[in-house]
């Protein structure tokens, strides 16, 4: 059975109220959703809270999921809107932390901490939609089409955000060397 069929089966079971099926969906997609939100918010603890809220919202609204995008994309979209609204209401732009950078330092193929710090700082300066597009496409490996569906933006706008965001991040790495 393919991954897509498995996911469809789990969604049908979760809609019937089977919490184990929904737990399996959370288990399968938490890494991508949390990864995206951690990169987008720049604040590890807040991002995990938002991811949790996004999954609970998805559970409540599962009947509204039409299957036009993947489940992962749908939950990322819910999380993006919660995070964006929270930033608007609390003006949390300056509340970014970098604790997670140090915690992921023991990965076998980890990039130097200086590079990751420079990138995190540069990410914080990007506009919300540009940062979200970069986090999705360059960070979590979503396609441009998926990112456009998640962010509810035209495909061309997403491509442009990713290109411009990438240029600014590259510039930040160059500046960090100097």
């Amino acid at each position: 059975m393919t991954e897509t069929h498995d996911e469809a089966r789990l969604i049908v079971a979760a809609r019937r109220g089977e919490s184990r099926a929904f737990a399996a969906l959370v288990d399968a997609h938490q890494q991508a959703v949390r990864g995206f939100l951690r990169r987008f918010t720049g604040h590890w603890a807040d991002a995990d809270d938002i991811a949790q809220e996004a999954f609970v919202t998805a559970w409540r609204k599962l009947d509204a999921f039409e299957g036009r995008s993947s489940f992962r994309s749908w939950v990322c979209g819910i999380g993006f809107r919660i995070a964006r609204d929270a930033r608007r209401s609390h003006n949390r732009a300056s509340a970014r932390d970098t604790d997670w950078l140090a915690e992921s330092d023991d990965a076998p193929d980890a990039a130097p901490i200086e590079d990751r710090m420079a990138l995190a700082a540069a990410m914080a300066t990007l506009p919300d939609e540009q940062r979200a597009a970069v986090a999705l496409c360059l960070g979590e490996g979503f396609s441009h089409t998926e990112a456009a569906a998640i962010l509810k933006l035209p495909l061309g706008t997403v491509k442009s955000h990713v290109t411009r965001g990438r240029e600014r991040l590259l510039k930040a790495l160059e500046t960090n060397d100097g």
Partner: protein
Amino acid sequence: MDEEARLSRALGAPVAPKRDARFVLAVMRDAEAARFKKASLLAVLRGAGFAAAAAALAVPFLGSASAGGAALQSGAVGAGALLTLVLAWRVMTGRAAAVRR
């Protein structure tokens, strides 16, 4: 290493764990709490609807039987007690069903 490779390496590294049972449990705990809250609210609303319907039926009866005061009072108290028991039973069964699911 050139900047492109450094960027890919720094951005491509996963920033969240592949498996995290604690996170999954936290989500499911909140999800179950949300479902219980919804089920309880629905049970209360159904009960309130039932009570309103009973009251609407009782008003004409009260109007026509206003002459027999004592008998009417004891009847109303008995009906109120029965209604309270029915509502409590509905809320408890709603809660049990939510927990079972």
